[in-house]
């Protein structure tokens, strides 16, 4: 479903070249919960941005459902992000002027859903993350954990093929982090493909598979025993 071949990302700083992602190749089967770990600067977030079409790699291929998406136009990439991908950012990245419900329904409106249908679907998504009772609240009226759950609701509301999460628990306390991880595991149990970047080993091991990175290279790629999720290749 998601595959990368010889993916490379080089940043230039003056005459210096920094290889953030070094010729990586791997595949993520449908329904897999993959975590990418590594120290700060290891290239894990850069890898996620390439996979999630938020950035363009220097070379290599990113293949989604058999199509290399690297060469697509900005407009086509935006369309793919809207329809097939979901994003969860470290600092929630929900819009401050929109309520929880409005934040969640935004991708649906862009897809062309009318307001009523978008609201109905958004409410279901909020219900899944346990926030239906806060649908009218602005982000400023929600706790960090609640905001992250709104972010998850927004990421899943349009039934994306893959969810990308960039350190979703980094700003949360342990209790709230566990609630968020619980939501991810439940989603994965229902067959949702998830790629999550984290530096927290405990949470990384909750997934099917963990890739450890250092200096843009894959140091290890392991299947986790006793993972809580489920996918078709189990």
């Amino acid at each position, binding site marked *: 479903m998601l595959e990368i071949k010889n993916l490379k990302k080089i940043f230039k700083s003056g005459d210096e070249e920094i290889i953030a992602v070094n010729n990586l190749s791997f595949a993520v089967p449908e329904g897999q919960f993959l975590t990418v770990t590594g120290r700060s600067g290891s290239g894990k977030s850069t890898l996620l941005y390439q996979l999630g079409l938020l950035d363009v790699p220097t070379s290599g291929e990113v293949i989604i459902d058999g199509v290399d998406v690297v060469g697509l136009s900005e407009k086509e990439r935006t369309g793919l992000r*809207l329809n097939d991908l979901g994003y969860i950012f470290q600092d929630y*990245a929900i819009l401050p002027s929109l309520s929880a419900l409005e934040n969640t329904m935004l991708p649906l409106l*862009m897809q062309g859903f009318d307001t009523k249908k978008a609201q109905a679907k958004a409410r279901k998504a909020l219900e899944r993350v346990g926030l239906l009772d806060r649908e009218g609240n602005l982000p400023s009226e929600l706790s960090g954990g609640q905001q992250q759950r709104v972010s998850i609701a927004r990421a899943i509301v349009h039934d994306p093929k893959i969810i990308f999460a960039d350190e979703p628990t980094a700003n949360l306390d342990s209790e709230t982090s566990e609630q968020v991880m619980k939501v991810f595991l439940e989603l994965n149990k229902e067959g949702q493909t998830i790629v999550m970047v984290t530096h927290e080993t405990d949470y990384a091991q909750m997934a099917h598979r963990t890739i450890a990175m250092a200096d843009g290279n894959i140091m290890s790629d392991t299947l986790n025993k006793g993972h809580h999720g489920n996918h078709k290749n189990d």
Partner: protein
Amino acid sequence: MTDNKLKIENSFSQNVSVGWFLAKRDIKHANIWTTTLIVFVMTLTFLNLIVVSGILVGLIQGSEDAQKKYAIGDIVISSFLNRTAIEQTPKVEAIVKTIPGYKDHTVRYSGSARVESNYRETINPGEKRDGVGGMLLGIDPIQEEKFSGVSKFILRGSYLESTDQDSILIGKNLLYEFTPIEAPGFQTLKNITIGQRVKITVGKTSKEYFIKGILSSKVDEFDTSVVALSSEVRKLTGRTDLDAGTIAIQLLPGTDPAFAKDFLLQSGVGEYARVQMAAEAFPKFLTDVKVTFGILGNVISGIGLVVASITIFIVIFVNAITRRRYIGILKGIGINKKAILYSYMYQAFIYASLGIFFGMLLIFLLIKPYFAANPIDFPFSDGILVATIPTSFLRAGILLVTTVIAGYIPARIVIKQNTLSAILGR
């Protein structure tokens, strides 16, 4: 993927509706004072667009309105340029009364006269008498009063009566007291009082008159004239017939002056005199000044538009820059760039619309009625505010378009930036 590729083309209506959705929420949750300030600036800009040029044009419009109301009416019949009077005036007057939509008319006799005040005093050789040249206007006091209500312009003294064969009214522009100009060749009468005798000379005919009143109307027809009974003017000018200088005609409201003019011409009046609608009879300098003031007003309005554009540009630019990360997030989750762009254009549109709305209320409910009731007292006219609904809507449209463009440019600059860089704030 194939299905997805088909789905990625967001329609115009989706971009428009998402843009509107975002704009509404942004404005709703914006700081109330910031919004109030922006709308206030837009209101002032709109007022500047309408009121400045409206008052400039209104100065002349006030003068034209006064000319029309008190001097020339809706239609004016005057002698041919190579004649001294309207031929067959009684016949023409009879035709005038048959115009469909006729309301009233006045017949005026005219000539040029010299007025002297110190003619009884002995003066030294080489010394000039205190005199002034002016227009001599002969009226029927009752008819003229009914037509123009001229008595309300009496500044001092009193209005003429039908029996006042030895009295005149004198326009203030002929008097030094009201026109204290001491330019070479320009003369005015000094030390004039009500009841004082003056000598009026037309050609070789002279007669003494008492000054019964001083006229101040801001209409040249009266302010630069010596007004006497028609019979006196005929005597002074040596006219033995009833042929007059002008016939001013008022029409009932709703009557088309062009139709009335055609009626008169078709009735044969054109054989005896010139027939003009008010707009054709206004002095050319008034029309020229009006055009000049209009241009001046447009220049000032143009500057106002530039200021409004810069204001909106800054507001939207600051707004977009401070929300650059959120723009990146919107793009990141698949919101089309156009939808984001539209949201900023909508915001500019809403700010401008609110400004225009409040501006319209102020103009049509407050400023225009105020100026109508309290015209600005200029030396040559009572200035009013000229602001019509169609012109106001046209200028509102110009302001809206300018504002939306001013909102579009900064939003586009910010939205064009790299999505990831915007999200990461770098």
